[in-house]
C-alpha cells in the first residue's frame, strides 16, 4: 500500500471506500461530477489502495479531468490511430500544446487553433459565442503569439423552426452572431473568414466553432508546460468566480436546456479585460520573462495547472487562498474548477516577478502568485493552511481511454429517380440563389470588423465598394515588412457528411483546398473541429471514425499536416442529433499578396474557362434539397486531379494569368459564375455544350468535382491554354449586364444580373 505523506483532514473526506455502486452514483450525481459507475469504481479502488477517502475537491478535480471535454476519453484512441505519423518538417508543434505552430518564414511562425463552444451557446447564445471567441484567442496568445485573425463557422436551426426551450431560432441566430461580433470587434482582432449553415438538425443544437490565427517570432514561442522546478505560478487577468462551474461536465453530456443547473455554467465574457491582458502577455513574452504559459479554459485551474506540470514532468503546490476571487464565499473546490474567463496561468522564475508586476500594473491587470512548481509529479493544494488535495498527476490528468464500439454506415447505392428537368431554368436559378444555403452572407459578415489591424488584403467580400461578392478565402498580411500572406478558410458540408461521413468529409477538405488555391495560395496546414453526436451511440461513433479516417487519408495524400484540433461530442438534445459536422479550417501561404487572385470578373471581353473534369452528381446539393430529392451516394473526390490542378493554378497565379478565379461548390456551376458576376456587376455568356454529356440541370447545379471557373484576358490566352492543356475548356466570355447560358443551341438562362443579385441578397433577410 502507498503511504500517505501528509494527511487530508478527516472532516474534509467523503467516504467512498467500501460504498455500494448505488451510493457511488449517488455521490457522482449529488456533486455533479458527471462520472459513470466504471469511473466512480476506479476512483474507489484507487482511494482504497492509498488507504484513505478523497476530499470533495479531489473528487471534483477528478470529475473535471476525466470529463470527455478534458481528456477526450471517447475520441483519443481514434485520433491517435489516424493522426499519428502525419508530419511535415515545417511544423514546429502539432497536437501537443494549446495550438499548432507552423513556420511562416525563416524568423516567424504562425499559430492556429479552432474550438467549439456549442453547449454554452445553446443555453446562452450571446455569452456562449462571445466566450468561444475569447477562449480561442487565449489559446493562440498563450503560445506567445499576437492574435491577428479570427474565423467562425456557425451552424443554426431553420429560421422559424421550433423554439429551443425558451429561445426562438431568431434569438439564437441573432445573439450568437452578436456574441462573435462584440467580442472580436471590442478586442480589435479582425474576424475575416468562416461559414454560416442552416439545417433543422441544429434547431436544438446550434454549433459555434471559433478559430484564431496568430503570428510570433520563432524564438518567442512559449510552451504550455513547466519543466523548471522552483518557478512560481502566477494567475492573471479576470478574477475567479462562480460563473462557469461544471462547464466541462455539462459539455460532456446530452443537453437539457431547461435544467436550472445551466445557470452556473453560463459565462458572459468581458473583452475589456482580455484586450489589455493580450498587450501585457505579449510584453512579458517579448522580454522573455516566462517559462511556461497556458490559458484557463474548460476545467479551470484544475486542468491548466495539472496539464502544464504533467507534460513538463514536474508537480505543483497551490495555495488557493491566494487566488483573487469575485466572491469571497466561494468553496475551495469551486475556486479550483471555476471556468471564469479572461485568465492566464504563467510559470516564471521568481527573479522576474518584479518586472512582470510592473508590466501587469501598467496595463491595469490584476494578478497573484498562487503557488510554485515542485519536484515529483504530484499536485498538492492548500487552503487556509490545510492540505486538501494530494494526488499524483499521472492519476489526475491521464484519464480513461475508451475504445468505443462503432458501427459503419451501410452504403445504399441504389439509384434514385431524379425529377424531370425544371420547366424554367431561370426560376430554378433564382430559387437556388435566394436559398439560405447559398445566398449572400453579408447580413452576418458586415457585423464583423474584418479590416481592423489594417492587414486584411483580400476581405471576406470582394468587388467594388457598393457591389460585392463572396471571396473564396481571405488573405491577411501579418508582418509589416513582408509581402508574404496567410490565406484562411473554414467550413463544412454537413448534409454531404450525413449522407456519407467518409466521402462527405473528403469533399469538405477538397473544398477548403480549392478555396485556398482560388486565391493563388498554396494550402499549408489544417485544423479540424469535429462536432458529432453521442459517442455511446455506435452509429454516431461510426460517423466520427469515418470522418477522422477521411481526414487522415486526405492529409497523407495531399501531404498536409493537421496541427491542432478539437472534438465536441454529445451534440444531442430535443430528441435529435446533429449531422456529422467536421469543420475544416485550412491555412495557405501566398508568397506575394499583391498577386492574390479574387473572385469577381474584372473586365468585359475576358474569356471564361472551366478547369477540372465534370462530375455530375446532385445528391446532397442545394438544388436537390429544393426539389426534394434524396439520393445518398456521394462520390469520392479525385485527389490526384486536385494535386495536379494545384500545381497549375499556382503557376498561373504567379504568372498573373487569372483575372478572376472561383471554385465550384454549393449551388453548383451556375451559382459560382453568378457570384463572379456580382462583384463588379459584369455579365457573362457561356455555353454548357463544352461540358461532358449530361442533363442541363446537372451541368448547372452539380456541386461535385475539383472544378474552378477562371476569367482570362485575351492576350494571356495562349499562355493559359499552353499551361492548362486539356484540363481547361473555354466556355464563354464576360461582358454585358446579363447572365446568359446556352446548352446545345438552346438558351436555358437569360436574366439580368441585377435581378439575380437581388435574389441572392434577399436570402437571409428573415434570418437576422
Amino acid at each position, binding site marked *: 500500500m502507498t503511504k500517505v505523506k501528509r494527511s487530508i483532514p478527516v472532516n474534509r473526506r467523503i467516504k467512498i471506500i467500501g460504498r455500494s455502486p448505488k451510493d457511488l452514483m449517488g455521490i457522482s450525481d449529488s456533486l455533479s461530477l458527471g462520472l459513470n459507475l466504471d469511473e466512480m469504481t476506479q476512483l474507489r479502488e484507487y482511494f482504497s489502495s492509498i488507504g484513505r477517502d478523497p476530499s470533495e475537491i479531489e473528487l471534483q478535480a477528478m470529475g473535471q479531468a476525466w470529463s470527455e471535454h478534458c481528456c477526450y476519453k471517447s475520441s483519443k484512441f481514434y485520433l491517435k490511430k489516424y493522426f499519428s505519423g502525419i508530419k511535415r518538417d515545417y511544423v514546429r508543434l502539432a497536437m501537443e500544446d494549446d495550438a499548432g505552430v507552423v513556420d511562416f518564414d525563416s524568423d516567424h511562425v504562425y499559430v492556429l487553433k479552432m474550438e467549439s463552444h456549442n453547449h454554452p451557446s445553446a443555453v*446562452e447564445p450571446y455569452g456562449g459565442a462571445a466566450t468561444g471567441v475569447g477562449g480561442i484567442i487565449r489559446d493562440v496568445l498563450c503560445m506567445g503569439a499576437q492574435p491577428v485573425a479570427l474565423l467562425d463557422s456557425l451552424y443554426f436551426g431553420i429560421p422559424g423552426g421550433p423554439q429551443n426551450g425558451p429561445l426562438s431560432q431568431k434569438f439564437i441566430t441573432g*445573439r450568437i452572431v452578436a456574441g462573435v461580433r462584440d467580442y472580436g470587434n471590442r478586442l480589435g482582432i479582425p474576424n475575416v473568414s468562416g461559414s454560416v449553415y442552416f439545417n433543422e438538425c441544429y434547431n436544438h443544437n446550434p454549433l459555434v466553432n471559433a478559430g484564431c490565427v496568430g503570428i510570433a517570432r520563432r524564438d518567442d514561442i512559449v510552451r504550455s508546460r513547466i519543466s523548471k522546478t522552483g518557478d512560481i505560478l502566477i494567475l492573471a487577468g479576470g478574477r475567479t468566480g462562480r460563473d462557469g462551474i461544471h462547464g466541462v461536465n455539462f459539455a460532456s453530456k446530452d443537453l437539457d436546456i431547461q435544467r436550472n443547473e445551466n*445557470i452556473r455554467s453560463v459565462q*458572459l465574457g*468581458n473583452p*475589456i479585460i482580455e484586450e489589455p491582458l493580450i498587450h501585457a502577455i505579449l510584453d512579458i513574452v517579448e522580454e522573455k520573462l516566462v517559462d511556461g504559459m497556458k490559458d484557463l479554459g474548460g476545467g479551470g485551474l484544475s486542468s491548466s495547472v495539472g496539464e502544464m506540470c504533467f507534460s513538463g514532468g514536474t508537480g505543483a503546490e497551490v495555495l488557493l487562498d491566494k487566488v483573487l476571487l469575485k466572491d469571497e464565499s466561494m468553496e475551495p473546490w469551486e475556486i479550483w474548477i471555476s471556468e471564469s474567463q479572461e485568465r492566464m496561468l504563467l510559470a516564471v522564475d521568481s527573479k522576474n516577478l518584479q518586472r512582470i508586476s510592473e508590466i501587469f500594473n501598467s496595463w491595469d491587470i490584476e494578478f497573484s502568485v498562487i503557488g510554485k512548481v515542485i519536484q515529483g509529479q504530484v499536485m498538492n493544494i492548500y487552503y487556509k493552511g490545510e492540505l486538501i488535495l494530494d494526488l499524483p498527476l499521472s492519476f489526475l490528468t491521464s484519464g480513461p481511454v475508451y475504445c468505443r464500439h462503432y458501427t459503419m454506415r451501410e452504403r445504399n447505392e441504389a439509384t434514385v429517380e431524379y425529377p424531370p428537368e425544371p420547366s424554367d431554368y431561370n426560376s430554378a436559378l433564382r430559387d437556388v440563389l435566394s436559398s439560405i444555403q447559398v445566398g449572400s452572407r453579408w447580413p452576418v459578415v458586415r457585423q464583423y470588423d474584418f479590416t481592423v489591424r489594417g492587414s486584411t488584403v483580400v476581405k471576406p467580400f470582394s468587388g467594388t465598394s457598393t457591389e460585392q461578392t463572396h471571396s473564396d478565402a481571405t488573405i491577411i498580411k501579418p508582418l509589416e515588412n513582408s509581402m508574404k500572406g496567410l490565406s484562411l478558410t473554414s467550413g463544412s458540408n454537413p448534409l454531404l457528411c450525413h449522407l456519407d461521413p467518409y466521402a462527405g468529409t473528403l469533399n469538405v477538405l477538397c473544398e477548403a483546398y480549392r478555396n485556398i488555391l482560388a486565391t493563388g495560395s498554396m494550402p499549408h496546414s489544417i485544423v479540424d473541429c469535429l462536432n458529432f453526436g453521442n459517442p455511446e451511440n455506435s452509429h454516431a461513433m461510426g460517423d466520427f471514425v469515418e470522418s477522422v479516417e477521411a481526414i487522415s487519408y486526405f492529409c497523407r495524400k495531399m501531404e498536409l499536416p493537421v496541427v491542432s484540433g478539437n472534438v465536441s461530442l454529445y451534440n444531442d438534445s430535443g430528441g435529435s442529433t446533429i449531422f456529422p459536422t467536421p469543420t475544416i479550417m485550412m491555412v495557405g501561404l501566398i508568397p506575394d499578396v499583391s498577386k492574390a487572385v479574387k473572385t469577381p470578373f474584372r473586365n468585359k471581353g475576358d474569356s471564361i474557362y472551366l478547369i477540372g473534369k465534370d462530375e455530375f452528381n446532385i445528391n446532397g446539393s442545394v438544388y436537390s434539397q429544393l426539389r426534394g430529392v434524396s439520393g445518398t451516394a456521394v462520390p469520392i473526390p479525385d485527389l490526384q486531379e486536385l494535386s495536379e490542378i494545384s500545381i497549375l493554378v499556382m503557376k498561373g497565379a504567379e504568372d498573373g494569368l487569372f483575372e478572376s478565379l472561383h471554385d465550384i461548390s454549393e449551388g453548383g456551376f451556375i451559382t459560382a459564375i453568378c457570384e463572379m458576376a456580382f462583384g463588379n456587376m459584369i455579365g457573362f455568356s457561356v455555353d454548357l455544350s463544352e461540358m461532358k454529356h449530361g442533363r442541363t440541370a446537372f451541368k448547372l447545379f452539380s456541386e461535385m468535382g475539383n472544378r474552378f471557373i477562371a476569367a482570362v484576358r485575351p492576350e494571356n490566352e495562349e499562355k493559359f491554354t499552353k499551361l492548362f492543356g486539356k484540363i481547361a475548356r473555354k466556355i464563354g466570355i464576360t461582358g454585358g449586364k446579363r447572365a446568359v447560358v446556352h446548352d446545345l443551341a438552346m438558351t436555358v438562362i437569360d436574366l439580368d444580373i441585377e435581378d439575380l443579385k437581388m435574389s441572392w441578397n434577399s436570402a437571409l433577410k428573415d434570418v437576422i
Partner: protein
Amino acid sequence: MPRVRIEVSYLKGVEDPEAVTILKNLRDLGYDNVKEVRITKAYDLLIPGKNYRKVATEIAEKLMVNPVIHHMELKILDEGKKIHSGK
C-alpha cells in the same frame, strides 16, 4: 395608445461585464463607497390595439430575454403599473 416598457436585467449570480467595468472605473475616480452597480435595459414600445400586453410579452420572449440569465418586467408607462413579471 399604450406605451409598454420592457425592463431586462441580469439574474442574481450572473456577472454583467458592463456593470463590472463601470464599478471599476468609479473606483478609479475615487468613489470607493459605491459597492455595487446593476444595469437594467428598458425598451419603450408604442403598441396600438388591445393586445398590447400579449404582443409585448411575445416580443420580449422572442427577441430580448433569455430566462437562463435574464429577469424581465413589463410596465404600462402611462399608468405606471406593473402588469407582468417573471424570470
